[in-house]
């Protein structure tokens, strides 16, 4: 009857389970679908041989089967080698199955099992499987061969025979529902129910069609229609091969798309980063040149003028340093290295005032957005002053950068018993709601930021820094109305300050995060 149940290695089980399968080459649950199929092939062969041997049907059946087999070979070998191994295993058993038409049942079953074993071993050797894995496979196949031989002797002909075949397939296949969760649950840490559902879904989707084919084959054989019965087997193999090839192809396409996206994002980042460095670099080169021209002109050096140029030069240099620091942080985080923090007491009000002043100096010249600050003096947090200044600079800088002419940017600092909150509000271009969840992703830039210089690392870096301080960052935005960014930093607890002055901030982050409502609910705008 059945070429059923060649899956089990196939699609439905969740990725982590797959990982366990493939990474450790743990023996698949005893009597898994693929091997059951081989055993049933042997059984059918054994059952067919005494019926077919004396009649002319044998030559017809063999011819049709050979054609089907040839078609299978042609179709499956169209695919690249890495898609073929599983198919090859089943292919290898087919010649033995044909052989089985002319030899006694027990011998046929043994031959089919041995053929499958040979195919499996050849594949395992190609894949570089360890001896342990091969030994397990040999043991498993031996059991299958013995089962096949036993069943071949035991089963009688007639409709009972058909029922027995279908039943055996179902029972053996059902074994997966029991053995998979039993073996895989402790191995993968997933819930047994979860695995059972995955197996059931796999069986229903992938193997349903094969069960149907197997059943058709059995019914055809029952009616002495040997040609269709034999044809069913290669058909099932082709179906399986196509299914597998399709899955692998989809995986490959998906993986390639992810890789291409990553490369494109990285390229855009490099261009943006070079732009961010190039502007202050223009300043460094330009101011140096201006001073050089001044000193070479032969006029008396103007001390005041020179000092103001040096001041501008150092501001340009500071901006380059900020960008380089950001890129370094991102690179470190991407490589999975933690950031090194220089923790101390930081006057956050002074930081906000300082950032706002530097922005306003720049912005006023262009009649851009002025920055209004409402920050009572002396609000102190514990943290890395350089990085916190970068966070504030980034958020205020964004607000100024994305605000139309003259609309105000407002920065406030407040504190309650637990949190120090920095709120920066603008009436700028805004960010579309569906893009908001991505703004903290490295290299991501909103569609409304098109044409505006930026690397897309600022907010992502800000989030990382704030969270490593045990804080939160939240953003709310309406396109055309403006954006509000809130940064919450844990307020210093007086006793903690006295006893552990240099405790890294993120050590106490967890319980703060649990006791406090999400910053979004704190409601800005």
């Amino acid at each position: 009857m059945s070429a059923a149940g060649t899956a089990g290695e196939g699609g439905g089980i969740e990725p982590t389970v797959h990982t366990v399968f493939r990474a450790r080459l743990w023996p698949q649950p005893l009597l898994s679908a693929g091997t059951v199929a081989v055993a049933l092939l042997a059984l059918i062969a054994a059952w067919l041989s005494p019926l077919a041997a004396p009649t002319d049907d044998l030559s017809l059946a063999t011819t049709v089967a050979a054609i089907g087999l040839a078609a299978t070979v042609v179709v499956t070998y169209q695919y690249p080698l890495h898609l073929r191994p599983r198919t090859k295993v089943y292919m290898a058993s087919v010649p033995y199955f044909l052989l089985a038409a002319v030899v006694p049942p027990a011998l046929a079953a043994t031959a089919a099992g041995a053929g499958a074993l040979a195919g499996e071993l050849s594949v395992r050797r190609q894949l570089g499987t360890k001896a342990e894995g091969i030994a397990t496979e040999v043991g498993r196949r031996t059991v299958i061969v013995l089962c096949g031989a036993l069943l071949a002797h035991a089963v009688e002909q007639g409709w009972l025979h058909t029922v027995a075949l279908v039943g055996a397939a179902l029972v053996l296949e059902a074994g997966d529902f029991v053995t998979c969760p039993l073996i895989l649950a402790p191995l993968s840490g997933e819930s047994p129910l979860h695995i059972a559902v995955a197996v059931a879904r796999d069986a229903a989707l992938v193997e349903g069609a094969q069960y149907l084919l197997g059943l058709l084959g059995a019914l055809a054989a029952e009616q002495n229609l040997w040609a269709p019965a034999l044809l069913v087997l290669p058909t099932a193999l082709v179906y399986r091969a196509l299914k597998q090839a399709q899955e692998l192809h989809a995986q490959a396409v998906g993986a390639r798309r992810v890789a291409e996206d990553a490369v494109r994002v990285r390229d855009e980042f490099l261009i943006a980063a070079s732009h961010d460095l190039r502007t202050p670099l223009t300043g460094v080169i330009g101011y140096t040149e201006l001073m050089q021209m001044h000193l070479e002109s032969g006029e008396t050096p103007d001390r005041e003028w020179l000092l103001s140029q040096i001041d501008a030069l150092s501001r340009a240099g500071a901006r380059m340093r900020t960008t380089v620091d950001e890129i370094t942080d991102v690179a470190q985080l991407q490589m999975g290295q933690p950031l090194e923090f220089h923790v101390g007491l930081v006057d956050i009000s002074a930081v906000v005032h300082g950032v706002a002043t530097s922005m306003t100096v720049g912005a006023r010249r262009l009649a851009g957005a002025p920055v209004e600050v409402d920050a009572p003096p002396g609000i102190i947090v514990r943290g890395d002053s350089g990085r916190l200044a970068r966070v504030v600079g980034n958020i205020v800088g964004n607000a100024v950068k994305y605000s139309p002419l003259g609309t105000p940017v407002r920065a406030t600092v407040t504190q309650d018993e637990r949190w120090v909150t920095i709120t920066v509000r603008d009436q700028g271009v805004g960010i579309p709601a569906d893009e908001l969840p991505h703004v903290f992703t490295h290299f991501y830039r909103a569609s409304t930021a098109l044409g505006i210089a930026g690397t897309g690392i600022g907010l992502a870096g800000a989030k990382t820094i704030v969270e490593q301080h045990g804080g939160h960052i939240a953003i709310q935005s309406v396109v055309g109305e403006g954006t509000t960014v809130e940064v919450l930093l844990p307020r210093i607890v007086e006793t903690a300050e006295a006893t552990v002055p240099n405790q890294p901030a993120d050590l106490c982050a967890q319980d703060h995060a649990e006791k406090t409502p999400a910053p979004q609910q704190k409601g800005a705008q």
Partner: protein
Amino acid sequence: MPHGTVLVVDDDPIIVALLEAALVGQGYQVHSSANGAAIQAARDLQPDVILLDLMMPEMDGAEVSKRLREDPQTAMIPIVVMSAAERLRAKATEMQVNDRLSKPFTIRDVLATVERWMRAR
């Protein structure tokens, strides 16, 4: 000392301050603006040369130059577009501008370019 008015259109304070310092030192009158406001500024000031940045948040340099060219009051003012070399190559070829300065530029380049267009007026 040369005379003439230059309108600097850039949203970056470093660039604006640098160009101001360089051009004022040469005796030019310098005004700065950014984004769409630059169009009105050009109409009011009637500068001799416009130095225009390509990347600005609200209205980019390509759009500003297009509008300046469409307006008969500003259509004849020379425009020098400034940006990174690779962006200039990609974009400035389709723009109706008179000259290009690739960032980072030198002050000598800027002064020579401005002077050339002053003389051309």
